């Protein structure tokens, strides 16, 4: 095979791959600042929850793997009732940035802040995220039934995991 023919073939293969992966760029729907503004009437206080080995083991049961990082940051209303958690969880290969607002051990809202995969972005639709409203942690499950989305199984799994994790982390906060 001539060098030119091989170059053409390689270019064609790469172009086809690029076409297949079109849309795989990071898509930011909501910045963390906008997310905070949306769910807190007053600027919340920032805090950190340190993940001890024990907490990591418990979180592993909800997440299906050990959570990354030594700490997780959160924001909390001045009265201590509402907390917001922004976490990344991999859907298929790339992290989805998910925000969860918790109040009184129940979810107030779930928002997809950024989505980077080429498939499964349907989880950002309000019709889907509204299902989490009012959900609490029932053992290792969510108290509400969450309907999945065909073709977005892994993204749905990631959002479920982060929703449970946020509820679990919120339980660990000392009352203010």
């Amino acid at each position, binding site marked *: 095979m001539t060098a030119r023919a091989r170059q053409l073939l390689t270019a064609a293969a790469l172009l086809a791959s690029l076409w297949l992966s079109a849309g795989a760029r990071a898509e930011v729907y909501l910045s963390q600042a906008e997310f905070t503004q949306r769910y807190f009437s007053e600027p919340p206080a920032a805090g950190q929850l340190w993940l001890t080995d024990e907490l990591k083991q418990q979180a592993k049961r909800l997440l299906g793997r050990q959570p*990354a990082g030594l700490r997780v940051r959160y924001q909390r209303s001045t009265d201590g009732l509402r907390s917001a958690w922004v976490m990344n969880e991999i859907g298929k290969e790339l992290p989805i940035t998910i925000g969860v607002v918790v109040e009184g051990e129940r979810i107030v809202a779930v928002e997809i802040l950024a989505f980077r995969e080429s498939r499964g972005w349907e989880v950002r639709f309000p019709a889907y995220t509204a299902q989490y409203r009012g959900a609490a942690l029932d053992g290792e499950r969510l108290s509400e039934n969450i309907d999945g989305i065909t073709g977005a199984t892994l993204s749905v799994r990631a959002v479920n995991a982060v929703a449970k994790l946020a509820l679990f982390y919120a339980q660990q906060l000392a009352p203010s």
Partner: protein
Amino acid sequence: MAKKYRTTAAMRWHSRVGVALFWLLVLLSLTGIALNHTDRLGLAKISLQAPLLLDWYGLDAAPAERASLHGRDYQLQSYYSGAQPVGSLYSDGRAVAACPPPLHSAVALPGEPALSAVLCNDELLLITADAQLLDSWQVVAGLPSGLRALSWENQQLVGRHSDGSGWALDTTQFTATAVAAAPALASSPSAAPAAGVSLQTLLLDLHSGRLFGAAGVWVVDIAGLLFCLLALTGLWSVVKRPR
């Protein structure tokens, strides 16, 4: 007699097409089965970096991106999954954190506890001296986009763009404040952000024929039509078989 002739002819074509497509059918079946179980088999996370394969995909074997921080060596392992570069930072063979390639810059931060800042593509990682991920900061959370270099200047961590404009990065409050511009960064030859392809990508390209360019796709298309012919001739021979 004519009926028997038609059945025989159908079987003859069935045999010819079957033999001609034997290996292709085996290849498509095996790759199809493997792709059906991509997630369970973790195919997207298996990076292939054989020189022949990199050459075929037109990828340069980029030098390993390394950093030495607080006396510990770190290495970025990256590969393409489709057209999307993905990567992880390793130390002593252990994955420390996901790090979207390329690894732009890394700097050890003074003070206690000893931390290091690692700048991946639009993501800043904070790593402890014993190679544990403390925290990560992304553009969605306020990290300025497009930073290319980190430095420790005037008792603060500074991230700079290629043109020299910079931001003081407060890794306690996770806020960025503009600082005075510096000379533009020396441009370095643009390297591919990743040097490798995932097994999933290879199997997908094999299954579709894209690995062999436009001609490969046509071959698979024609094979698809011939598979239909195979099914039809097979069905025909069963329906018309003398009883």
